[in-house]
């Protein structure tokens, strides 16, 4: 059962360096043909690149451990990124912190009660300026995941 008292919980901030080679690798893997990623010396990050934060987060500190979701019934419902200006460029050191923004339940059409967990991750540059935010919706279904929906 999901623990709603986790709303507002944050993890410890940590740093993530935007690596040039990783930006190229990511742009290629997501089928971009833009020279702004593949040829320039200081490429900006692709919109969904911040998902690579999983390389940088210290083990065992995820706020998800506080939410207690059942991983067998977990679906990724949606993902949003906001950039407060051009996306950060390779070489930037970002400070990253995630909070549990909301937890709520809805009755599903097929799978019983679905629990939605919204997390927001903030990315700040070396000067402390908020440059990007990632908002993620995780869904715990009422019964084990099927082929339909989510990924």
């Amino acid at each position, binding site marked *: 059962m999901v623990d709603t008292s986790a709303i507002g919980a944050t993890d410890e901030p940590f740093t993530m360096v935007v690596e040039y080679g990783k930006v190229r690798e990511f742009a290629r893997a997501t089928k971009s*043909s833009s020279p702004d990623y593949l040829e320039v010396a200081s490429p900006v990050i692709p*919109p969904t690149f911040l*998902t690579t934060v*999983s390389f940088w987060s210290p083990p065992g500190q995820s706020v998800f451990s506080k939410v207690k979701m059942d991983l067998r019934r977990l679906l990724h419902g949606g*993902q949003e990124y*906001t950039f407060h200006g051009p996306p950060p460029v390779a070489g930037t050191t970002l400070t990253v912190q995630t909070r549990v923004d909301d937890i709520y339940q809805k009755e599903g059409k097929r799978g019983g009660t679905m629990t939605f967990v919204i997390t927001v991750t903030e990315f700040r540059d070396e000067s402390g300026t908020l440059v990007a935010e990632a908002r993620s919706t995780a869904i715990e279904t009422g019964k084990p995941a099927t082929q339909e929906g*989510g990924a």
Partner: protein
Amino acid sequence: MTSWDDLTVGTAAPERGYGPISRTDIVAYQGASGDFNPIHHDDEFAQSAGYPSAFSVGMLQAGILASYATDWLGPRNVRTFGVQFREQVWPGDRLVCAGSVIARDDAARTVELELVATRVGGGAAIKGTATFAVE
């Protein structure tokens, strides 16, 4: 590149096909992103969880849809990008990305896009929205 004057409500980006999505594509994305969940490349693991085979990473389709949009309006210009996951994508699937302008803000000089990646022979895999600031 497409300029501000070319963008009005209803302006559509040229449709673009991707794939077939191979297992190599999936593993290349997992290496790029750091998400090594075996359900996306290990059939035995996926079958033990009730799926017929391994299936693509939702964020790969999301990333392809994002690349489609940034290849059109410019990587430096993107301000928001959001997706909702609909149908799963399986190895061998082909995707077609489409997008169009649904709003234009003259004061902010931004356009809002509606985006979709559709499985050929199936339904929408990913629906998305994006905002671009266009010079």
